């Protein structure tokens, strides 16, 4: 019996029992749908991370205290108090591959405007921060170098903070209180939008000096954002920064650095690595559904073989060979799981769209994950269809014909 005939026989047999066929395929439909939806969440997170890094500009470098290779033992990067404002200035003055620097200190605090109250991240930064981060101001203007040096009590609001405290009313010139200290609002940042798992607009920028003196009472900074002259000069900038800091921190040749410099592509890589792991994890969980769906197919195919023993006997009595019966039942299983796969793909795409519409999570369905799901569901059919098909083909024609 050739392939076309086998497929026709299998399709006819499936059509004779539409409800059973649908129920058999249901496991695969849900399985494939779940895989596609879950993987789309992981892919969405990945796309989100990549977009954010793109926006930040890839000539960005971060300098943090603490050594890279001893991070674990030293209780995490950033726990040192060795980074000073003067380090940032030295980098700007001595490294010709560096165009901008911004010393940073962060904290969280309650912010009060009139009778409204909001808990937000407070970023103490330098005046070059908007240029380094490629982040425009929407209203008003960022604080100047003089205002930073003077430690003025001025602030720029992230759009979310602005919405929550001012609800659309003019903010420039108004006074908000951070830890009871009054800050004059200079402007509002452009909205970066809600992306992924946290908002980037729930933030208030103040001069880093003000933050150090008034809010934190420290004389060290937490990190330095650096902008290299161009994308090609990031490696050069990194080397220059390391040289300057080793001299300033009096680190002997061969000794461990008490700081580390990371460039954007390193960070982007490790971030997309973690979203990759997320994708695998989500896909793995969803694959269990697919496995269960496959076992469902096997289960119902086995029942179906028992139910159809007579049919098998009849087919054998008119000349069906073992191979013909095997192929018929195998084809039925494959057709069912492929049809289930196709419906599952639609279900998955639909769910992915629903997820991105109803939740802050972004989803991306890649053609490759559709192809993979299709391929996988076909293999499920072969794998789980084989045992019942073999069982059917091994029946003895007389026993099968006599079966009540």
């Amino acid at each position, binding site marked *: 019996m050739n392939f076309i005939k086998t497929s026709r026989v299998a399709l006819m047999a499936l059509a004779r029992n539409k409800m059973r066929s649908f129920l058999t395929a249901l496991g695969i439909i849900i399985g494939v749908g779940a895989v596609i939806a879950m993987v789309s969440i992981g892919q969405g997170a990945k796309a989100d991370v990549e977009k954010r890094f793109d926006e930040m500009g890839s000539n960005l470098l971060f300098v943090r205290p603490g050594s890279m290779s001893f991070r674990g033992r030293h209780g995490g990067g950033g726990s040192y108090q060795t980074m000073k404002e003067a380090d940032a200035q030295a980098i700007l003055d001595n490294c010709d591959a560096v165009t901008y620097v911004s010393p940073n200190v962060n904290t969280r605090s309650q912010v009060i405007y009139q009778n409204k109250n909001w808990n937000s991240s407070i970023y103490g930064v330098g005046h070059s921060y908007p240029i380094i981060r490629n982040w425009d101001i929407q209203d008003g203007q960022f604080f100047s170098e003089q205002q930073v040096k003077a430690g003025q009590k001025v602030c720029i609001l992230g759009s979310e903070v602005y919405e929550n405290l001012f609800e659309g009313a003019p903010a420039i010139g108004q006074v908000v209180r951070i830890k009871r200290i009054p800050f004059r609002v200079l402007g509002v940042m452009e909205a970066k939008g809600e992306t992924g798992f946290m908002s980037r607009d729930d933030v208030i920028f103040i001069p880093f000096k003000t933050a150090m003196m008034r809010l934190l009472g420290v004389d060290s900074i937490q990190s330095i954002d650096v902008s290299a002259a161009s994308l090609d000069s990031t490696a050069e900038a990194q080397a220059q920064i390391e040289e300057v800091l080793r001299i300033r921190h009096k680190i002997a040749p061969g000794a461990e650095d008490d700081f580390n410099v990371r460039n954007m592509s390193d960070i982007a890589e490790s971030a997309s690595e973690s979203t990759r792991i997320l994708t695998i994890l989500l896909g793995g969980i969803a694959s269990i559904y697919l496995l269960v769906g496959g076992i469902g197919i096997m289960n119902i195919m086995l029942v179906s073989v028992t139910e159809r023993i007579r049919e098998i006997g*009849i087919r054998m009595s008119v000349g*069906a*060979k073992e191979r013909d019966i095997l192929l018929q039942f195998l084809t039925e299983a494959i057709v069912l799981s492929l049809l289930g796969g196709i419906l599952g793909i639609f279900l998955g795409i639909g769910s992915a769209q629903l997820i991105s519409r109803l939740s802050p999570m972004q989803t991306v369905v890649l053609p490759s994950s559709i192809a993979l799901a299709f391929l996988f569901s076909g293999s499920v059919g072969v794998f789980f269809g084989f045992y019942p098909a073999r069982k059917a083909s091994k029946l003895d024609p007389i026993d099968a*014909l006599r079966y009540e």
Partner: protein
Amino acid sequence: MQNNVLIELNDIKKIYTVGESEVHALKGVSYSIRKGDMVAIMGPSGSGKSTMMNIIGCLDKPTAGRYILEGTEVSTFDKNQLARIRNKQIGFVFQTFNLLARTSALENTELPLLYSDVNAKTAKEMAMKSLESVGLKGRETHKTNQLSGGERQRVAIARALVNSPAVILADEPTGNLDTKTGDEIMKIFTQLNESEGITIILVTHDPEVAEFARRSIHIRDGLIERIEENGR
């Protein structure tokens, strides 16, 4: 003479083993059936009639003895070879019809052709012709459950005929039918035998049904007891 022999059974024995005990269903049957003959096999229940039919029909293999069908010894054939013989040289008609449920008369009739190398179009033509020859023209699209018992048995005969087999084997073909319908079925068999020269072997308990055949073979306890010529 040799050329005229269709079926040659030579000391055929069949032993079924059920657990510890053995059932000797056939104890050495030797008989030859000529081409174009119409034979009724009779005998009490459990005498081995169906066992003999299954061996002749290549659904089963004898425990001992030689079975030669159209000059070829088939008792040594493997499963696939037997399936091929069933497909090309044998047509079955069963007491319980054994049609596929929820399937049209036409598709049921086409079934043997699915397992041969006939293409779909020819298969359909052959099945239509076969249905017509049993008087079911116009019922091609009826599903099994929309047909009466007599009509179902006719579909079964059409299916048995469709591959132009050397022999049609009918195990109690009238067993589930009333006398009148049974007679109609038997008339179809006699007509196929007389005008088309198709060899027919049937099993029956009913002497009146056996009358339709040219001769009756009486079996008792797995052995041929006597042969009766019906003078047709």
